[in-house]
């Protein structure tokens, strides 16, 4: 009796099995790269985590923050509004961490890695409000395109889309990844508060510590 594996059928089967195994390996490596893909049967990691700290962005309390769980590269961003009720939008920019966080009704809906002012042209720290929004703007100061411009001060500080990459800096503006800038521009309104902080001094400890 000839075994099944002797003929061409066996060959096809062997090749198919090896192919399946290779597929498995590739999916395994893919899994390692994109940490976060999980089986539906396993509980998915939460998008947001409740924040133990009690801290405020532009006077509004922060309740949850996005559970990013990995270091974002320059130019990368996360935007997720799922389950977040409509509400007021506020923005927190932390220069030391090179991050921006967009909150709606106290829940973080977007975060990105940003560029900020070079050492010779530092970004001023403080809370500002969006004065002007222009989707297509060309800087008359620097003769450069600034898509999705959200002006913060009258002397040329703004949030705008730019080519965010490692080792780059701006003339004082906050440079956002283009896709992120587009989303933020859509979500933003005139008067939206933007808190630019240098460090974490605005994030206080857990609520219990703060009460004492």
């Amino acid at each position: 009796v000839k075994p099944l594996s002797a003929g061409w059928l066996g060959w096809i089967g062997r090749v198919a099995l090896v192919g399946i195994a290779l597929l498995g390996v590739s999916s395994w490596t893919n899994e390692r790269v994109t940490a976060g893909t999980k089986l539906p049967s396993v509980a998915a990691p939460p998008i947001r985590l409740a924040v133990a700290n009690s801290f405020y962005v532009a006077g509004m309390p922060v309740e949850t923050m996005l559970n990013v769980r990995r270091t974002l590269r320059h130019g990368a961003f996360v935007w997720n509004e799922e389950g977040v009720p409509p509400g007021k939008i506020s923005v927190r920019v932390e220069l030391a961490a090179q991050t921006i966080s967009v909150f709606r009704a106290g829940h973080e809906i977007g975060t990105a890695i940003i560029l900020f002012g070079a050492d010779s042209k530092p970004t001023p720290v403080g809370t500002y409000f969006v004065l002007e929004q222009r989707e297509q703007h060309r800087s008359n100061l620097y003769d450069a395109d600034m898509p999705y411009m959200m002006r913060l001060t009258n002397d040329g500080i703004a949030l705008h889309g730019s080519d965010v990459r490692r080792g780059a800096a701006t003339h004082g503006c906050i440079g956002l990844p283009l896709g992120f800038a587009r989303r933020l521009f859509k979500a933003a309104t005139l008067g939206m508060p933007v808190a630019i902080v240098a460090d974490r001094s605005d994030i206080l400890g857990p609520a219990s510590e703060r009460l004492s």
Partner: protein
Amino acid sequence: MAEQGMQVAAAGRPKKWRSGNRRGTVFRRPWSGLVIGLGLLPLKTITGIAGLGVAAAIAISAIGDGSGLSARAAQADAAALLDARSPGEREAGILLASKPAREPKSMIMSMAQERENGVPALVERALGRLGPSASADVPDLIPLPDLLLDGSPVQALASALGLPRSGAPVPSFAGGLPLPGGGGSGGGGGGGPGSETPEPNPPVVSPVPEPSSWIIMIAGFVLVGWVLRRGRAAGRQPGLAGAP
């Protein structure tokens, strides 16, 4: 505050993280690798052994995935969340680098650039041609009479080049490689209308194949060898590849 936060968190997952999820679904279970390995065992060839190794790797990965999930906290420190995503502080010494000088793309001009500029390339590729270049092969353009009126430009060209009317190969425009002699009918084809104006710069085909071609060729040799061995072991005439 916290309860509301967890409700929001349980609402769903970001689409961004879902990529590449379905394809590997089967292989996420620890036992899936074992099943594949057992399936490969009766094949009693190298594939079976290799398959076992691969399957073991899959099984190990699946186990690792399962254990990595369990550690999760309900509440998190905001600073820790920021730390997890931040690339850290910016490098010191960035003064004004909004538009850093880009490195020159390449010192070597591409062929297209060269044709555009009309400037000969400074660098010539090694191993670019085997034989003498086409410009040396093909005689210079002869001022031809108005051939199109004749109705048979090919024959007219052949006679103008001093070649017999049929059979002998007309020097083709890609004539970098010296062809083995003869080829009567092929020569007739080569003398088609395309060769009226030989290209001044024929596309260079590197004689050294790409690595992928090497891999395919070596794999082919392995396959042929394996089939021949198989035929010999079965006491048959080697050569009929794989005939059962």
